[in-house]
């Protein structure tokens, strides 16, 4: 026993260093990720939380205002307009986008379709198209006087629609732009999920007399539930952080009647146009809480295993 105690007794600085290194080595090796995450992830997040308690214009020293930015935000009708628009766009774009992505992915996963690689590339192209080009294309397509969409409507004797300036139509234009741009992205996620479903299940279903629709609803949809849930959550986060499309189509102020103002553009406008960084940070935190709550709700509603 005494010999053992002697063996464990500290043996000078090299022993201590050696012991320290044995503990620290694994962490040292995994530290680059955590250091980068700390510098570019955690610090900005913590910084934004602290900034949200200040009235700070970015240049002169900020004055501490406590929760005042949050109080003003929760009384700001503009915030509720942006939130309403965001929820509208979320409900209008995410369910059809997920459904379309699943349908397209199922079709493109079928061995009956030729040139699958080409179609997959074509569907994915809008995702990698420059947003400036997207903005230009949509501005031209939806131009009131000279746009292709209104010209098509005129063929059927329908009056022109002010897609980009009429508050009643602006959100629909935004939803269409989002569907065009992001369905291909969701389709790739769905495709990855579909390729993990064993083909034997479909063969067995066919032998049992199931048609393509029955196979889709009885095999594909239930087995794809985790992927669909993942896609729904990712799309929800994306929609609540939406910025580029409404900015390009309607500008940072959200256009006519602020019908194109979403939480992302409201945040940008306050932070980088009005230089109200404290208020902008408060918007970011409230939106983050909303996203968290919605994601939890989706997980709760959709997270059960298929029967």
């Amino acid at each position: 026993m005494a010999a053992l105690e002697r063996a464990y007794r500290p043996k000078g600085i090299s022993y201590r260093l050696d012991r320290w290194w044995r503990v620290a080595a694994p962490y040292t090796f995994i530290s680059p990720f955590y250091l980068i995450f700390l510098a570019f992830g955690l610090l900005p997040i913590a910084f934004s939380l602290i900034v949200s308690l200040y009235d700070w214009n970015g240049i002169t020293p900020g004055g501490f205002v406590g929760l005042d930015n949050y109080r003003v935000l929760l009384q700001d009708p503009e915030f509720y307009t942006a939130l309403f628009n965001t929820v509208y766009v979320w409900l209008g774009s995410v369910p059809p986008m997920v459904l379309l992505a699943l349908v397209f992915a199922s079709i493109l996963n079928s061995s009956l379709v030729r040139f699958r690689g080409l179609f997959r590339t074509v569907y994915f192209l809008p995702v990698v198209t420059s947003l400036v080009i997207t903005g230009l294309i949509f501005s031209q397509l939806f131009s009131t006087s000279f746009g292709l969409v209104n010209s098509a409507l005129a063929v059927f004797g329908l009056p022109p629609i002010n897609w980009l300036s009429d508050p009643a139509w602006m959100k629909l234009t935004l939803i269409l732009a989002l569907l065009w741009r992001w369905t291909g992205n969701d389709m790739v996620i769905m495709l990855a999920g579909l390729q993990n479903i064993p083909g034997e299940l479909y063969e067995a279903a066919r032998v049992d007399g199931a048609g393509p629709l029955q196979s889709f609803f009885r095999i594909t949809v239930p087995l794809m539930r985790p992927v669909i849930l993942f896609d729904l959550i990712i799309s929800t986060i994306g929609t609540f952080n939406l910025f580029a499309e409404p900015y390009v189509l309607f500008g940072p102020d959200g256009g006519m009647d602020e019908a194109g103002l979403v939480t992302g553009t409201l945040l940008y406008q306050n932070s980088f146009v009005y230089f109200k960084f404290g208020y902008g940070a408060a918007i970011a935190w409230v939106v983050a809480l909303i996203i968290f709550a919605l994601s939890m709700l989706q997980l709760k509603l959709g997270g059960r295993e298929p029967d």
Partner: protein
Amino acid sequence: MRSDVFQGSERPARSGHALTRRRFLRLCALAGLGIASGTPLAACGSNAGVANKTSSGKGKSSAGGTLIVWGFQGTFEGIQSQIPKFEQRHPGVKASIKQFGYDDVHTNLLNAIVAGSGAPDLCAIDVTRLTQYVQGLADQNAHRQKYERQFVPPTVELASYKGKFYGLATDSEPMGFFYRRDLWDKYGTNPESIRTWDDLATAGDEVQRASGGKVNLYAMTANETSLYEVLAAEQGFGGYYFDDTDTKVIVDDPKIVEAVKVLKRLWDGRSVYRNPNGGYAGDEMTALLKRSKVASQIVAPGWYPETLKQSMPEQAGKWRMMRAPAVSTGGPRVGYQYPTIFVIPQQSSRQDLAWDLEVLGLTGAGARVLFDKYDILPAYQPLLNELMSKPDKYFGGQMTYRLWNEIAHDAPKVFFGTGFVQAQQIMGNHLQQVLTGKKTPEEGMQEAAQEMRAKLKKG
């Protein structure tokens, strides 16, 4: 991390001083928290010295190196043309231009000022944004007197705030009214008879009838504030949304309400094309003018002729320009928008050199290069004086530069106070409500004033 990293007898003994994984992680977490909580607080106060730094016109100067200039299209070209001359004058010093988009210049300058480094030596900014940056900019007041007479009023005044002067303007932006002479003649509208906005609305009814509804006399966008600002200037409010002390909101003043009623009358006119996408300078408006669907550009600033000339060269000789109509008979017919100015950030270690390059680029040959390239109305008075005697072929030989000069000189004391950009946004929202009939002008302006007072913390 599993604990089997330590095996057998190598497992360290647990004692108060021994370094365990838990203790190591706790130390790291504490260090992280220390950094996380300390840095933002320090950052919030990191510019505490900015406001206190004094930088007069006799700014910092250090020899050698490269002078960095940031600008957006239509601002930096005069400076760029003078770089060889500048480098010859200052051996060993180089100058380099970095071109950004309009929004990016403003965001990047802010980021650089916030970060405390990375700002250029010279930067183009919209004069409406000046008050947002002044704490990070060098005061050039020592130079003001020398250049005051060389630059068109009110550009020097607009580049000043609270007794300090921040830079020279690249252009001047009085507001004019543009119309197609041929279409006006065809549908019986006499420009001489359009003295007030009400005259214009009335004339629109006649154009609508005479053209069988095919041509609109003018176009308006409900939430665009350009036209409102002209009317505010005509009513004597050079701050458009604020009084001349920049402390009070004035949009519920009876004179402003009167101006908004005039806007409503224009909006309700039979010959108005409503809400072209992108507003008066957007693609749809340009297409409407090009296809002769709209016969006038109701208000546009000094750079607008270039848009006409580039987009509609085939309409050369058909266009004319006049002063914007007045709110009431015999009233002022003026308006002024937002020139670009070149400012010198306090971070610049070569402020004297930067000023020298600014002067070279925005006066004399530099100003001429910018004008020749973009036909933008110059702020440099000697160049404008020269142009005033030249007829403009695109406008049927009209002396447009003389007219621009007169409008600029007649403009009231224009200034763009703190929160100007946000005030524009608030006004746009309420104007739209008024024009589309959801609110009366009185209600709309009262609510706009309340929102501005609350959000901009003014009286």
